[in-house]
């Protein structure tokens, strides 16, 4: 097979050509309430070819792995059609040729755990939720594990066979009282260990407690607050607030944004360090090579408050004259790789939680994540659980807290960074350009942000 792929990319009438072939197995189990909603075994196999001709890209994806030469020709034709309309600006940053075979060696391999055992573990958690108390109405439980084998062959001589393991899910407790519905959740994920799912009884109980307590909580009054954000939500904040804007495809062809995002520009105070790494094994954002065959690295985006790097594909790095960082990722063979994050973190600082808290007269302590969204300089991130801070103390629980910011103001308003760094994987993922959910991770210590906009009642 590999030899055939090599001969097809070698024969392509293109400046650059690649073939990616993927074979994967997906197991999914979900419960809603007592009933098992779905249990399934899916096999997915397909591939794609991509060709670059004088600055134009052609891309063809498929399930049938026959007629690869015809498909390559089609991609070359599409790229050639584009090349008549562009000035050939696209340059791929040079990278070393890689020949490698990456094998996953899980700590606890989900493929070796029987469906029966997986089901029993989830049912155990489901029982905890459903028997917690009468205000818990129902549960939503999801689990998946996916094992894939991806072969990438390029016309430059790179040939990588990479195995990937991804697993995750969540346990959601749904509380209901009259017309009011609230949820509490425990989410998990890993790239090498089924064990992250074991022994989480306390976390599941905590999710139940949160859901029930929030039924009685009031809403926060909308406005600007000083917020302390817990590591899980601060990780989402790093991802939404700065990660997306750092993606090379945002910047590389926009001269005005390049002016704003020149390396060396100050974005925060000198305690702020943000990086994105593919090298942290075990997390869902772990990746030895990206989908262009570039080895991943730890890429600093902000160091001592200053912009020092961005997340590149070979194309965005080539156009900007910077180094590729191994951030070109595709969710599957259905898509061409684009600039994406891996594990995005705010680096550990020195402040203790008490120090952050003590001089806040009125603020919000936002914990746990419902997710977030970014567009340009604007972003939102939603807390799963939140409390008012009054006179330096954590006060009452408040519900439905969504925070919002603007990258040019909000990062500067981070005035304290905690000493309790943590990466917590979730079962969700990141979406961009129709590619969702991509496995990513994020981490952070507690951080304090001044003047965050919190939506809410009058």
């Amino acid at each position, binding site marked *: 097979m590999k030899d055939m792929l090599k001969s097809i990319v070698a024969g392509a009438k293109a400046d650059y050509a690649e073939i990616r072939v993927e074979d994967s197995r997906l197991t999914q189990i979900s419960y809603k309430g007592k009933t098992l909603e779905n249990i399934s075994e899916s*096999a997915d196999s397909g591939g794609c070819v991509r060709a670059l001709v004088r600055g134009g890209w052609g891309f063809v994806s498929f399930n049938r792995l026959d007629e690869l030469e015809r498909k390559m020709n089609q991609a070359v034709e599409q790229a050639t059609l584009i090349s008549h309309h562009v000035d050939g600006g696209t340059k791929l940053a040079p990278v070393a040729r890689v020949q490698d075979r990456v094998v996953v060696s899980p700590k606890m391999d989900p493929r070796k755990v029987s469906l029966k055992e997986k089901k029993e573990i989830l049912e155990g958690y489901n029982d905890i939720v459903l028997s917690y108390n009468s205000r818990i109405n129902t549960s939503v439980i999801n689990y998946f594990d996916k094992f894939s084998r991806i072969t990438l062959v390029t016309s430059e001589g790179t040939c990588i066979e990479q195995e990937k393991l991804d697993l995750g899910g969540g346990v959601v407790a749904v509380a209901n009282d009259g017309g009011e519905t609230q949820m509490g959740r425990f989410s998990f994920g890993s790239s090498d260990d089924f064990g992250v799912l074991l022994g989480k009884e306390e976390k599941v109980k905590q999710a139940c407690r949160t859901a029930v307590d929030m039924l009685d909580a009031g809403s926060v009054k909308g406005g600007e607050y000083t917020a302390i954000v817990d590591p899980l939500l601060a990780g989402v904040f790093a991802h939404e607030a700065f990660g997306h804007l750092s993606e090379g495809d945002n910047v590389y062809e926009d001269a005005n944004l390049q002016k704003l995002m020149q390396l060396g520009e100050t974005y925060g105070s000198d305690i702020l360090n943000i990086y994105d790494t593919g090298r942290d094994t075990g997390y869902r954002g772990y990746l030895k090579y990206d989908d262009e065959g570039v080895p991943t690295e730890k890429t600093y985006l902000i160091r001592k408050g200053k912009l020092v790097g961005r997340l590149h594909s070979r194309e965005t790095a080539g156009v900007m004259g910077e180094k590729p960082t191994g951030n070109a990722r595709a969710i599957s063979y259905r898509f061409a790789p684009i600039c994406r994050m891996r594990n995005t973190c705010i680096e550990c600082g020195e402040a203790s939680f008490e120090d952050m808290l003590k001089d806040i007269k009125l603020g919000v302590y936002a914990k746990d994540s419902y997710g977030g969204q970014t567009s340009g300089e604007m972003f939102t991130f939603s807390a799963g659980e939140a409390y008012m801070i009054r006179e330096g103390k954590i006060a009452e629980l408040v519900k439905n807290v969504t925070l919002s910011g603007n990258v040019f103001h909000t990062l500067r308003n981070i005035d304290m960074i905690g000493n309790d760094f943590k990466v917590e994987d979730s079962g969700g993922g990141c979406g961009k350009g129709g590619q*969702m959910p991509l496995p990513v991770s994020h981490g952070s210590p507690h951080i304090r942000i001044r003047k965050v906009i919190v*939506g*809410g009642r*009058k």
Partner: protein
Amino acid sequence: MENILKKAIKVGEHAEVFQLSGSSTQVNFENGRLKKIDSSENFGTALRIIRGGKIGFATTTKQNDVDDLVRRAMDVVEFGGECRFELPFEECGEDVKSVPLFSERTADIPTEKMVESGLEIIRRIHGYERQIQVFCGFTVGQTEVATANSAGLKCEYKKTGAGFGVGGRLIEGKNMLTCFESRAGIDFDFDIQGLTEKVIEDFDVARKNVPAASGEYPVILTPHAVSDLLMPIIVCSNGRAVAKGISPWRGRLGEEMFDPRLTIHDDGLLENGTATAHFDDEGVVMQKTTVIEKGVLKNFIHDLDSAAALGARPTGNGLRNKRMGNIKDVAAPPAPSSTNVVMEPGDMAVDEMLKNMGDGILVDRLIGTMMSNLYGGVVGGNVLLGYKIEGGKRVGRIKDAMMSVNAFSALKDNLVALSRERIQLGSFVLPYIRLKNVNIATRG
């Protein structure tokens, strides 16, 4: 397909095979230049085997994977979910059959024509402002869907799909502004020029920022923002959420929940709707279901399972969709999902609505609303694009603002008017809505 069904019936008691195949082409312009042309061919099969009252579900995208597919479905069937329903066997009537799904125009559109249109759009927008990073895209495709089951059903249809989007990003100083419009349907029938001019008009007004203090405002939501406001109604009327008690609406059919001017349908037969089809993905004939009629909760939407759980009739909403959006995914098990969401219009022209409001805020785009507590009715998000209205006119953009409303109470007590005009946005057909007393929190 028949071969799979035959083998599956041999080892199970009942079985259902669902097959999806298709092809599509996308032409994309990014940062003001033609960037890529993507095409895709896809094929997949899903199998449900029912044995001992349980369901085994397995899928594959391989071509000759019949034995392995059947084996995997059998592997999971003993652990599978309870099967509470009978597989359907229903002919679709002439009224359904006559709903067009295939557009020759979409099927035949040459790639070069899309390229030409894109180049024209870029010339036009750059003619207005060279600094705008223009993006636009065209998608055309065809899908063939077939379902067969052991009750004797064998149904299939062939459908086209088309999409168009245009927009741009303008950075002036530290101000970033994105304006865009997109449309989708079965037929490649887009007002490309009109939408391009709309984007230019939006840029022209929104590049000027105007301050707005935190507080309660009269607000008009455009159809884009109305689609966010409707999310709580969409998730709460989902038969599965109702059956499992996640939705707070169980046992509340017939209750007057909203303003009597509010009528919402789930319409699987909507002309040119992206979710329109003759059958759902379990082989149930598609229909138009009225969810809210004059403010009263009338129906939930169901797949086979949720209908059986609640003793209702399936409504043709058993779809195999990706987690987000109306895109079919062969690996997804059927679940109740909205088809096309259609809201009845009001009687006031949009211009008149703006004039009547006088001063207030026009909210066009929100981000982050999907992360709200939708089952609690909460819709909260950053106002990505919103305008301050003075004397019925857009005077500039309000920025760094959060809107938060409870859709349940807003559409009951705070609804002022619905517009006569509606816009079809893919699977949504929605009017503009004016609300009173909406909370907007801003910076500073």
